[in-house]
């Protein structure tokens, strides 16, 4: 299905494109694969970036979002490698969930070097939270309780066991000095989404919530949930600047759930560079900053070689901790 071109946008397009000296010429329309059903985070990444790409005229035609659910992104990953190897008008949405599955070998026979990582345009940072009348009022107190007895605190989160939300607890626990042998004993209950897990925490059925700040924000504002720590390098911008980071509490745990893209391995260096430059420009545009503001995305910007190194590093560290706790052998 192709949609008619929005001709009015071409005027702005020529202005912006002139700034780009690259010899590569992007095709009139592009495609963004969201490796999940409509409505999720990847779908949002594709649709919102796609809109900015056309609004700013980087793509003169239309950026079509194609939903390709399956295997937590594995189907789209395999599709990109095997069927779209040199398609330079294709981007695929990815996030920390993608690197987690790559690290744990859940995309059977595939690894992160089989695609090219373009960049990330924002992140949702991890948080650990409790209900307002919880006995634990700091992350240190919570971790001390776990150190004394690893089954004393029961966590709930929106990802499957071994998924990113579960790993956040373990990353923080490891930094806090919980014994390695005790880490796998920490109880984690998997729910279908962050909100479902928060309800259980607020209702007093579980002790703590692990998830992203975007999931916790509503319940935090209503006063039902107390966020003990945000797993970011620095405090988040206002109005979330009241939440202490884990680092401030001497627990060195950083867990960004970034949102970004990869492209097929076989695209030319010029095409890859075009996407890197474009993502840089999109990130700094007012349009995108507005999208971030409205959707609670936090600053996180890495592109090109820096981003590829970051992805590799994240895959390595997730692999390490997953092996340690016995998720992968």
């Amino acid at each position, binding site marked *: 299905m192709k949609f008619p071109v929005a001709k009015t946008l071409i005027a702005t397009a020529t202005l912006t494109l002139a700034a780009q000296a690259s010899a590569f010429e992007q095709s009139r329309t592009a495609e963004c694969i969201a490796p999940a059903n409509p409505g999720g985070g990847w779908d949002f990444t594709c649709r919102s970036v796609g809109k900015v790409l056309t609004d700013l005229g980087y793509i003169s035609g239309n950026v079509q979002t194609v939903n390709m*659910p*399956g*295997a937590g992104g594995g189907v789209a990953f395999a599709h990109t490698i095997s069927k779209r190897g040199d398609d330079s008008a294709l981007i695929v949405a990815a996030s920390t969930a993608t690197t987690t599955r790559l690290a744990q070998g859940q995309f059977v026979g595939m690894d992160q070097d089989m695609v090219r990582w373009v960049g990330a345009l924002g992140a949702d940072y991890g948080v650990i939270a409790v209900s307002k009348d919880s006995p634990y009022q700091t992350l240190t107190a919570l971790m001390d309780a776990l150190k004394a007895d690893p089954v004393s605190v029961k966590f709930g989160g929106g990802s499957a*066991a071994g*998924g990113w939300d579960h790993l956040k607890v373990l990353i923080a626990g490891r930094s806090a000095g919980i014994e390695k042998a005790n880490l796998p004993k920490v109880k984690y209950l*998997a729910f*279908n989404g962050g*909100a479902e897990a928060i*309800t259980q925490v607020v209702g007093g059925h579980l002790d703590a919530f692990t998830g992203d700040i975007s999931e916790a924000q509503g319940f935090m504002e209503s006063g039902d949930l107390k966020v003990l720590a945000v797993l970011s390098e620095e405090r988040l911008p206002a109005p979330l600047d009241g939440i202490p980071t884990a680092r401030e509490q001497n627990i060195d745990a950083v867990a960004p759930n970034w949102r970004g893209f990869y492209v097929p391995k076989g695209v030319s260096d010029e095409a890859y560079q075009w996407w890197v430059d474009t993502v840089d420009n999109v990130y700094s545009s007012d349009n995108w900053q507005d999208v971030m503001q409205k959707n609670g995305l936090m600053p996180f910007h890495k592109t090109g070689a820096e981003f590829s190194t970051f992805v590799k590093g994240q895959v390595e560290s997730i692999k390490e901790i997953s092996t340690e706790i016995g998720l992968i052998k």
Partner: protein
Amino acid sequence: METLNFLLQGFAVALTPENLMFAAIGAILGTVIGALPGLGPANGVAILIPLAFSLGLPASSALILLTSVYAGAMYGGRISSILLNIPGDEPAMMTCLDGYPMALKGRAAEALAISAIASFIGSLLATVGLVILAPILAKFALRFGPAEYFALFTLAFATLGGITGKNQVKTVVAACLGLMIATVGVDITTGNQRYTYDILELYEGVDFIIAIVGLFAISELLFFIEMHAGEGFKKVSLNKLNLSMKDIIQVLPTCLRGSVLGFIAGVLPGAGASLGSFLSYTMEKKIVGKSGYFGEGDPRGVAAPEAGNNAAANGALVPMLTLGVPGSGTTAVLLAMLISLNIQPGPMLFTQNAELVWGVIAALFVGNLILLLLNIPMIGIFVKLLSIPPKYLMPVVTLVASVGIFAISNSPLDLYFMIGFGLLGYLLRKLHIPLVPVILGMLLGPEMEKSLRHALTISDGDWTILWSSGLSVGIWAVAIAGLVLPYLIGPVLRRRMAAAQDKDHSIVD
């Protein structure tokens, strides 16, 4: 007051021109779907789900479209009941009893108009009931822990067969089949793959939308092929409408009584719209007594079941939205829709997605008004649609379903799955095994399993956690009643329903 505020916000969502358009389209499509014999509301909604997805509609618009289809199908069901003596869907069965005799007497237009008004009143009152009751139920939200959820899902399965269900064993077989299909995919409690055989497409399990479309729509197509029902029905004629205010006032009390009874039947899990219309009709007959001429074309005999079944249809939305437990086949399909939109129905829905829920409720009000306005002047068009031969209709339905399914995931494998489920659905229907429990097994199975495992993790393996709170004990009690009652009351109710139908046939013959 708070509820009223939410409702007003809901109207702000429902009254945007775009959503108004979707409500109108849904209402028209729904009426057509309901009117065509065989293509009941569950099928209609099932076919349109993939379409709503592939259009990339926002969640609220998609839901407004589909709830309007649902409401419209309940309206449409009466058209073929009255004109052809063939119920468009099961709940419309009781409307045949007096509707068709009215048509035979040359008062088809009046029967249709009265039933439209009765449907409107039924839906309207039930939606008011939904507005009042749902937030009260939703208040219990935070008290639901894993143990209570497990009891709740058991309740859903216990009441699956319905009070009037004949063969509980076949219902159980169907539910187990659904539960088995649901185990395919990643087990989120441990992160392990189950029955996926390293096929990436299976990692997230079998998509229940595909299963629904296959089981309902494709199996329907196979039945049409088998029956050679290609030529359609004889043309029906319609007289000029001659309805006075007096006629409307005469049926008004009937409508009100039917609505209340229907709503109650709808809210109770396992009862559903068929029972709603049956109860309304029999009660009306008792109340009116000898002065009525039920079975021979009494307008009250048209109004009562129509008010009852529409009220029950909306009443069934109460347990679906607040507890995540569907009371009927169509609400089960709507539940599937919600889950696919990443909206988890259940006690928290009203807090987390307030705007969406109230938008949908407001859309029900708007949709009903649209339906009433559509149904009186446009009835002639709907009647003409009845004479479209299925040989043109069914291929179109299949095409729409297939395109929709392919557009969701762009995977040809999903189309094979759809056909597979179609064959399975055909086989199951031949064996008289109901299809709805299969879907419910697929929908609720993973949730039920997860709740049980969570409960046991929290209690460190102590099973008594499952009945350790007053709430869970209460739910268990209802669940047990749901299992036992069909054996006690079921035969009586079934006999009466059968008797009512026999009587109807004796008139027709």
